[in-house]
């Protein structure tokens, strides 16, 4: 297990380094002058030039990359262009909102997807199975921003059950949870379909396994066989799927944060790209990349710990 963990860590470092390089290349090919955009129409040429120097844009591109690369590995992501606040602080104050959104999305997808998948598997071929199949494909096919807008129109504007904008009062957990319901539903609903399909397929496979037949032969209760013996095995691919799904949810989070006017890393990056605030773009994307890689690593290690076949394959 130690060797497996070490190999996975090495791979994670390589992925983050490659991501940093690609990110840097992409950002510096975007047209537009960051100094002119940041300072607005009333700035003089001298002021724009001073800001370019402050941002390090007067340096050769390889020097800029080396400064960014070495700084990033020591936790120094530079300072925000105008307010001079450390980028790491700016990103970390937005990160909890995005993490809460993703956690909420995962909660919706697990809470609805796993029972639906189990129900479809144990009712294989029935009307219930077909209904779950149709629902799964439908929620996968509908983009998250469409779900977000309809949820907002129904539950916030028409019924006024839930708030439409914001993330709730800081320090008021119940208010924050209420503000999380609709955005997290928008982020997680698509994954309900994926997880239901995955759990159904895995369950059908496991329910045919010999140890399940043996359990049935011993007369164990149906519920115990389904949930204790079949589901615990069938759920393993779902963990891997969720590891990948977090990346998808991060991109959905951008839409949810804009539509629901929530703070978060997605919104931060979106605004920073529009204003060519490159230090914030690089810092925020780097932090989310590291987070994504770590969560995937965690998912892989978890599957490795639960399934000896995965461990032995490395």
């Amino acid at each position, binding site marked *: 297990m130690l060797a497996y963990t070490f190999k996975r860590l090495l791979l994670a470092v390589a992925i983050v380094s490659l991501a940093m390089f690609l990110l840097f290349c992409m950002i510096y090919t*975007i*047209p*537009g*002058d*960051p100094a*002119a*955009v940041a*300072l*607005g*129409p*009333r*700035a*003089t*040429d*001298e*002021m*724009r030039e*001073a800001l370019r120097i402050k941002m390090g844009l007067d340096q050769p591109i390889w020097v800029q990359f080396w400064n960014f690369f070495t700084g990033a590995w020591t936790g120094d992501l530079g300072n925000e262009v*105008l*307010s*001079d*606040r450390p980028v790491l602080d*700016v990103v970390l*104050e*937005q990160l909890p909102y995005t993490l809460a959104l993703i956690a909420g999305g995962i909660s919706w997808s697990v809470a609805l997807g796993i029972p639906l998948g189990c129900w479809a598997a144990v009712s294989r071929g029935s009307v219930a199975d077909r209904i779950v199949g149709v629902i799964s494909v439908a929620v996968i096919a509908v983009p998250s921003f469409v779900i977000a807008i309809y949820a*907002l*129109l129904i539950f*916030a*504007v028409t019924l*006024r*059950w*839930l*708030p*439409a*904008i*914001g*993330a709730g009062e*800081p320090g*008021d957990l*119940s*208010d924050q*949870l*209420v503000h999380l319901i609709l955005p997290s539903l928008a982020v997680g609903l698509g994954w309900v379909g994926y997880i239901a399909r995955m759990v159904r397929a895995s369950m059908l496979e496991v329910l045919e396994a010999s140890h399940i037949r043996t359990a049935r032969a011993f007369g164990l209760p149906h519920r115990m066989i389904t949930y204790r013996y079949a589901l615990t095995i069938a759920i393993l691919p779902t963990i891997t799927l969720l590891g990948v799904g977090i990346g998808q949810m991060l991109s959905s989070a951008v839409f949810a944060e*804009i*539509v*629901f*006017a*929530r*703070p*978060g890393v997605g*919104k*931060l990056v979106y*605004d920073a*790209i*529009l*204003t*060519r605030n490159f230090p914030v773009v690089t810092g925020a994307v780097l932090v989310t990349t590291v987070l994504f890689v770590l969560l995937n690593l965690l998912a892989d290690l978890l599957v490795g710990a639960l399934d000896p076949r995965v461990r032995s394959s490395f």
Partner: protein
Amino acid sequence: MTTQPKFGLSRRSFLASAGAFGAATTMMPRMALSQDGKVLTVRSYSDLQLLDPAFRLSLPEDDIIRSIFAPMIVPQSGDTWGWKPIAVESIEQLDGLTVAFKLHPEIGFTDGYGQMTAEDVKFSIERIADPANESPYAGDWAALKEVEVKDTLSGLIHLNNPFVPLWNTTLPTPASCIVSKKAVEELGGKIATDPVAQSGQYLLTEWVPKQKTVLRRNPDWKYEQGGYEEIHIIPIEDPATAELGFEAGDLDYTWTAVSSLPRLKENPPEGSVVLEKPSLAYVWLGINQDNEALQDVRIRRAIQHAIDRPTVVDAAYFGAAAVGNGIIAPGLPGSRDAVTYDYDPEKSRALLEEAGATGLSVTLDILNQSERLTAAQVIQANLADVGITCEIKQNDSGTFWTLGSKEGDYFMNLQLVLSRFSMQPDPSWATVWFTPEQVGVWNWERFDNAEYKALHDQGLQESDPAKRDEIYKKMQGLMDESGCYVFFTHEVVGAIHKDTVSPGLKPNGESLLADFKEA
């Protein structure tokens, strides 16, 4: 064998009930909050980035800065442009070059920075004017000679030359906000996002980045009080999101998209008032006279005659905006009733043939916003009608705002560009961007006219409104003659507020937070 009682409480039903109860109780605070009349919740289109009056970046920041650092005067809310004193007990123009002021005696700075004095006024104004400080607003005080301190509360503002915009676009803006000399010097000369030594009608008590800014009435403010105990400012960039937030009851006031105005006016949400205010902004099609294909003035005039301006404006703004005839909005000196070119496709075709430019192909750069795209598509159809092929190029804001910059590599390739500038209530604010010094900066048409420049300088010093009117009309006539401009509209500003709120708005619909009151 036992049977469960029919109406018994199972573990499952207990958990379900508890969950439902929990969800219901968490919704209660929201209902309670919306009934609290002491808090005003408004939308701003961007979050604050800098609180320094000398380095502010956006309109929403202006409103916050004006509320927390007492300005000498502020714009008056209502339908006509005017001002009212805030930090000053009196202020008057003694002659063309001198303004006398006297501060209110009981204005103090928070955080132990003491009484506001004339020395603070001198520091606040001169730090903006001083080129060494590189304030983008140095131009507001371009005519400043010095601020003379007479005593603790009084002083004189001395100008080098008469400067008419002083009372329209300098003093009523945050360029007259007074900061504490001691506090700013301790901060190293610049205020960032931590509002030290506040002095205004409100105090900034909380800023949650990207989420909200909270202003609370300044308990030590002795003069005209703000209308609400607290003002919560929520940054929402997308107007459609803000409209939904308003309809859901989460906002008391918001700007709306112009495209939403017809729908909201026809069917306003219950308990709301929809406003439509004339904007000072101006939208135009710019034609780069230095581009190789457009150097012949006959080609540029042909483009002017090819475009059906009312159709462009109607299509882009859903009939909500009127056609504009220049860069100066109605109500200001220099506003025109008509342009000097008309929609005449026949004349356009004739000019193109005369210039040997039949079969011309051009590009039209626009910002990637829906009303700009609609306008561009109508322009494209109009140009096609006279035989000009037009390719529309959409740009994000970061790219768009550098297209005509001489420091880039595209400015000579730029051909047609659909632009919009915002505006302050003085015509010089519009004309300044088209002077020869601005070629390659904000003058992307590269319109270079010495007479225009001379008239601009004359307009800054001319105090007679009739003569100013004449000057600025003549300047726009020169713009017409160059063939570099097709003027479209001054737009409108749409806003919506609860009927329990009486909003404080400038004539162009921009908000004055401290002037919002309960209806």
